Structure formats: C-alpha cells, structure tokens
C-alpha cells in the first residue's frame, strides 16, 4: 500500500491517502502526491519538506530525503503512544518488531524471507476460503474452539485449512486458528527483543481485531492499536520532516530542498 500524509506544524493532518501500490503506482508517486495536495488544498510549493519512506522510497524522485521505514515507524508510533517500548508492524510482505526508548529506535527484528507471519499469509487464506480479508476479524471472534494450524509454511497451511474445512470445522474456528498461527509466529520473532509494555501493533494486519486478540494472548499483555494503524510510517515521516525543518531554521541553516516538480520516477538515465 502507498500512504501519503500532509501535516502542518501543529501535527494536524491536512490530507491522508491510502491506496494499493501495485506496479503502476510504483512509477506514479507523483500522481498520489497531486491527489494529496488537492485534498489539502495546497500547492506543491507550499510544502516545506518531503520525506519518503518504506520499501519503495527510492521511487519518490521529488522527496527531499529518504528515511528508512524503521525510523519513521518508531517516530509515528511514539507520537500516538509516547509510552511505547515495543512496536510490532505486520505489513503485506514483512513483519517487524521495534524496540523503542524515549521515542527513539534502539533495536529491531524483521522477517521478509518467509510469507508465514506476514499479511501475505492471511491474503493467501482469504483467497483459499473465498472470503474478504475485512471480515476475518469479526468472524473469528465468534469461534468457540479454534482449530490448531500445525504447518508453519503458508502453502502447507493452505492445504491444512482445506482439510479442516472438509472435516467439518467451522469457518470461525479456522479463522481463529489462522490468527493464532500468525500471531504466534510474529510473537516468537518479537520475543527476541524482550517485549516490554507498552506494546503497540501497527500495519494493515493490525486492523484485524482477531489478530489483535491473538497477539494479546500470545504475548500475555495488553496490545495497543492506533486509530489508523496503516499510517504510522507516513505520519512518522511527516513529523521527522517537520523536526528537520524546524531544527534547521532554529540554527539559521538553510533547509535543503529539491525543486518542487512532480515527475514520474525514471530508473534508467
């Protein structure tokens, strides 16, 4: 997913866009930016600083600076929950655990090698079951005895789900089992950081109430979820942009900006 946040100096959000990245958007960050500016009612010249983050941050040619998603996530999450010590982000193709102290990133763990324990796991299951991902959470809460999914591998778990269905297990119980499987896997990874409260869950998967519940059970502690769990990286980037600008101004240094032109990214020059 591609997310854009336009923020003013008081950290109020003037515009916010969330949409699928897809192969086209990878090239067309400029189009998303235009949309955001329109929503905010601003011209591009009025933007003081642009920070790009995330997996595709190099595909934003008009950004003044690129900052890794780990730093931006940490900053964004700390802005929602200043007391956060552990942030867990489960996205569409990776999962990260961040250790945060006083709003600063101090350590992290990450999985982008295996689809199990990422949002991709649930996407594959949604395909297999012919269900909408949005309905996973609420449906799973009706479960009375969750099905144990013993395969780690997404592909093997897919077959397991089909077998359990054919044996008559209910959809609710299967979904609860799947949520437990993904939460268990992410929890084991994050435990390497020695989880300390407050724990915050972000990323698209955090919108799934079933995973949030399973995460609480697996970690044995409360798990906080921000209002817009998808936006923590973009909001963190915007805040970092503001801070960089204010710092430069306070020191009387010039703010290094690019020319404000919205163009497609070109990979080969």
């Amino acid at each position, binding site marked *: 997913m591609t997310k854009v946040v336009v923020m003013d100096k008081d950290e109020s959000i003037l515009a916010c866009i969330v949409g699928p990245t897809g192969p086209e958007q990878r090239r067309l960050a400029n189009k998303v930016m235009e949309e955001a500016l329109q929503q905010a009612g601003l011209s591009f010249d009025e933007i003081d600083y642009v920070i790009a983050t995330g997996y595709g941050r190099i595909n934003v040619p008009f950004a003044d600076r690129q900052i890794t998603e780990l730093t931006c996530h940490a900053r964004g999450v700390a802005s929602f929950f200043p007391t956060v010590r552990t942030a867990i982000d489960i996205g569409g*193709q990776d999962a990260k655990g961040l250790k945060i102290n006083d709003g600063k990133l101090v350590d992290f763990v990450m999985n982008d*090698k*295996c*689809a199990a324990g990422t949002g991709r*796991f649930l996407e594959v299951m949604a395909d297999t079951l012919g269900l909408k991902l949005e309905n996973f959470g609420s449906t799973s809460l009706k479960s009375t005895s969750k099905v144990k999914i013993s395969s*780690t*591998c997404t*592909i*093997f778990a897919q077959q397991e789900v089909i077998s359990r269905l054919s044996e008559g297990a209910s959809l609710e119980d299967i979904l609860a089992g799947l949520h437990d499987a993904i939460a268990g896997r992410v929890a084991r990874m994050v435990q390497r950081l020695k989880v300390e409260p407050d724990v915050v869950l972000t990323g698209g998967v955090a919108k799934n109430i079933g995973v949030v519940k399973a995460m609480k059970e697996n970690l044995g502690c409360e798990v906080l979820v921000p209002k817009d769990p998808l936006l923590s990286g973009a909001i963190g980037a915007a805040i970092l942009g503001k801070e960089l600008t204010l710092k430069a101004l306070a020191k009387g240094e010039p703010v290094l900006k690019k020319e404000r032109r919205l163009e497609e990214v070109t990979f080969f020059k």
Partner: protein
Amino acid sequence: MAWYMGIDIGSVTSKGVIIKDGELLAYHLVPSGSNYRAAAEEVKQELLARVGLSLEDIANTIATGYGAGNVPFASQQLADIICSARGINNIFPSARALIDVGGQYSQVIRIDEQGRVTNFVVSEKCAAGSGRFLQVIANVLRIDLKDIGPLSLMSRNPVTFTTGCAVFGESEAITRVSEGFSKEDILAGVHKSLADKISALVSRVGPEEQYAISGGGGVDIGLIKSIEEKLQVQLLVPPQPQIMAALGAALMARGQEVLIY
C-alpha cells in the same frame, strides 16, 4: 518363485511396482488426489492387470509414503526414507547419498553399502526446496510440469529469487514476467533456488562421494543440472526416479534383507 508388491502413496503421486526374483515386472503411477485409498486401489488393479495376476498371487505387499496408512492390502507400512534408500541401492549400489525431491518436501538420505539409512534430513517445515515451489511457478507461467526441465535449459540469464519462500517466489515470478523476463529464465531461477535449499540440506548430513536423485525432481533435467552445478558432483539418475520408494518397498516385502534399524 514369488511376486511382491510395493505401494508408495505420495502427497502428489501414488506409485506401485511388482517384482519377481528381484526383477521389476511392472510399475504404475497415478495422481494421489484427495482419496488416497482410491489411488492405492487404482495402482494395485493396474499392476495386477499388467502382469495378469490376482492379489492372492502376491506373496507380500508393503506400503510406504505420506499416505501409507491407506493401503489395506499391505501387510506392513515402512517409512519412505527407508524404502527410497533400499530402492536406489538396488539400482546404484555405489550411491552413498540420495537426494529425494518430492511434491511436498525434499530429503537427503545417507546410505551404507547394504542400502541402509545412516542419516537423513527433511525440509518438511516449508515448501521451499520442494517440487511444490516448481508447481506454483509452473502454474503462474502456465507450463506443463514435464516441460519445465527442457525449457529451463534454454535460459541465458537466470532470474535470481530473493527468498526461497514459494509464496513470495510466486509474486516475484509475476513481477519478472511483467518486466519482460522469459519463462526459461524464470524457471532456471527456480531451479537455482531449489538447488540452494537442497545444497543446504546436503551440508547438514555431510558430504558424500556418490549422489543419486529420486522423486519427481529426478525427472526434471533442469533441476538435475542445477544441483550438479551447485554441489559440483555428477548425480546418478535412475531410469524411473519416481518409483524408487515403491521399488524399495517391494524389495523389503521380499524380506531377504535382515531389517535392523
């Protein structure tokens, strides 16, 4: 003089053989599908029809493989690792390690002079390194499994997969197609990824002099070449790599070997 039967119900393919005096008389393969019992029955019927016998003529039958419990006419079930080792030893007595690339997982088995298992590792946690990965990619590219090997040999510039994960591999393959990579290059890339995983399994059981290959992977010439390149060895390839476990089961059914494991 007597006939013996070995039945191997794999996760993807079911195989069976009938032997007489240690000589292979007939073999048959069918897709396992979702009803293993029916697959076992189908293999049995076809084998008996080919040699013109009835089940009463078979002195003993042993079942092996993932679905070995679904062969009611077998007297005994044995692990597929034991049977594959026994089968390959019959064809290649010099083989000291067997790389078995199955539909669901891959395994590397060390074998002694008598065809007994001395050590083994299985990749069962994950589809990476198994035939399943190839199947997923063949689906994306709309290619028949049997064409994978010859096609991949025509690759000039194999794609590099960033992870061994079959799920991520599927999306990577789709991306590479959209970037204009040829199917040959993508298939060669999958073979390299599988060879890497298999080589990791090999290093866990330790190096050997003579390697053989069995399972569905042994039918894929592209995969064989990739493994040979990665391990810097020449693989012994049996004429019917998929029936090694069934053959081993039939040999065990003959019971001339002293079974001490």
